[in-house]
């Protein structure tokens, strides 16, 4: 038994501080992303998740220039983007596509400049890779309290607005008719999604952050018919893939080319993708044309 454990967990895994921090931050990001991911998919707002991911690159690269933790940049810019997206009216599908496209382009242009300065003016040559693709073992322990606070804020929004958000995800008309402040609830939900994306960006990188947001949620939607259970499944899938990714990345230190661990994000994202494929194979018949069937 200890032989098997020894071959799964490489020596020093449980004693390493970077591993502890990676496990803590990765777990929190997986929980928040699982819960918010289900709302993102139900509300058809994965476009917003992708926009937050791109825009957070600007914040992350800016943080590197200022010498502060990238979580401040990730969270600051994506929450700001949530406010802007509401102002320019994401209720209208046509307007929102154009507006998010333009804001996204401008933000990425700025990111190009910041990343250029990061690599030329500072000694941290790994900045680009860290921001775009994440570096879980490089997260400083002092970031953990910030991560916890942001995740509590995101989960708090969901806990308070759970039912109004569910009903307005089904139909804003039904929500209006029940006296729900649909727009306020929508903005709060966007802010929570922005926070989930920035936590995910910190762990698996800004570019890959939507994988942790959308992947487990999309998989969970195929496994259950109930919203609460879908969130539970998404959290479990996110946690398991993140933990496995961390273990495999730690093990890969001894894999070729030796003495260099493979990126954690590669393992996490690949495992999420495999889960999604497996769920498709398990429940291929979920979709049914609503027009067909009994009257």
């Amino acid at each position, binding site marked *: 038994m200890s032989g098997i454990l020894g071959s799964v967990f490489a020596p020093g895994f449980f004693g390493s501080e970077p591993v502890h921090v990676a496990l803590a931050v990765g777990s929190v990001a997986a929980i928040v992303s699982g819960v918010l991911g289900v709302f993102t998919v*139900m509300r058809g707002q994965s476009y917003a998740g992708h926009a937050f991911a791109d825009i957070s690159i600007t914040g992350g690269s800016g943080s590197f220039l200022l010498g502060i933790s990238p979580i401040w940049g990730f969270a600051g810019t994506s929450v700001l983007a949530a406010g802007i997206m509401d102002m320019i009216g994401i209720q209208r599908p046509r307007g929102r596509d154009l507006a998010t496209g333009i804001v996204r382009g401008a933000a990425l242009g700025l990111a190009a400049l910041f990343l250029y300065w990061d690599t030329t003016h500072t000694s941290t040559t790994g900045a680009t890779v860290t921001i775009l693709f994440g570096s879980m073992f490089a997260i400083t322990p002092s970031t953990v309290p910030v991560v916890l606070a942001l995740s509590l804020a995101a989960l708090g929004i969901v806990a308070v607005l759970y039912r*109004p958000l*569910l009903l307005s995800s*089904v139909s804003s008309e*039904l929500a209006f*008719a*029940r006296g729900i402040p649909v727009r306020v609830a929508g903005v709060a939900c966007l802010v929570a999604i922005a926070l989930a994306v920035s936590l995910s960006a910190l762990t698996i990188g800004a570019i890959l952050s939507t994988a942790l947001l959308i992947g487990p949620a999309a998989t969970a939607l195929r496994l259950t*018919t*109930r919203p609460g259970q879908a969130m539970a499944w998404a959290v479990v899938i996110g946690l398991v893939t993140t933990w496995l990714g961390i273990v495999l990345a730690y093990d890969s230190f001894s894999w070729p080319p030796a003495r260099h661990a493979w990126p954690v994000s590669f393992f996490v994202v690949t495992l999420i993708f495999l889960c999604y494929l497996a769920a498709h194979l398990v429940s291929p018949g979920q979709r049914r044309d609503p027009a067909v069937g009994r*009257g």
Partner: protein
Amino acid sequence: MTMTQRQPETRRQPDTIRDEVLAVDGISVRLSGREILHDVRFSLRRGEFAGLIGSNGAGKTTLLRVILGLTAPTAGEVRIGGRSRGRRGGVGYVPQKILLDPDMPLRARDLVGLGLHGQRYGIPLPSRSRRERVDEMLRAVGAEEFADARVGNLSGGEQQRVLIAHALISRPQLLLLDEPLANLDIRSEQEVVALLARIAKEQQVAVLLSAHEMNPLLPVMDRVVYLAAGRAASGTPDEVVRTEVLSELYGHHVDVIQVHDRILVVAGRAERPHTPASDDATPVAGPGRP
């Protein structure tokens, strides 16, 4: 408050006021310079089943939105249960054309439950009384068979039943439905109409249902509110669906033709040029009106 028989409006004055659920009093709506509704007035009592009939663009959805309080009228007022202001509690609403995503992890019973407590904050704790209430409502609309299926996977008629249960579970005095029969096959159409007529009588709810076609409603309709060019005529179908009344409403001659049990309204040749529109040219309504 139980009422077994409808009384003529003029005789039983106290009962009329007590049983009046909806009063639409001289509603006009002007949106960006165009008059959508002009001096629309009618009332509904408990247990009454009314059809809001009119072609596309006649102002049906606007009128329903005014009653719901989502659109402000330029003139007139709407009273629900005798009250004109404040929160429009006690109104159930089934909107037009809801697209329910098949991937949405929501069962029919979850959507019905949200009609009861969807506006509340916090995470719901399981409640036996709420569950029983949802079961009872699912039975009332004949949806217990697909109660645990995803709403997005149900057929149009099944979704309509679930939405009706969602709107009714908070025990409203008034149920508004915007084109609930659109996109239904003939059998589901008949089933939904029969269901609504039964609910109106059993639960003593006033039902106002908009449709562009009145024939499916004729067997069960207590009252028709006929909208044309923003003006309305209301009364029993026999009072309203007549050549003189509808010609006056449309502003040109139309023929009302009865073929078996079906009624056809066809545009006829204008005998004389008709100039509509002075304010006193309001169309005829029920006999009780001054």
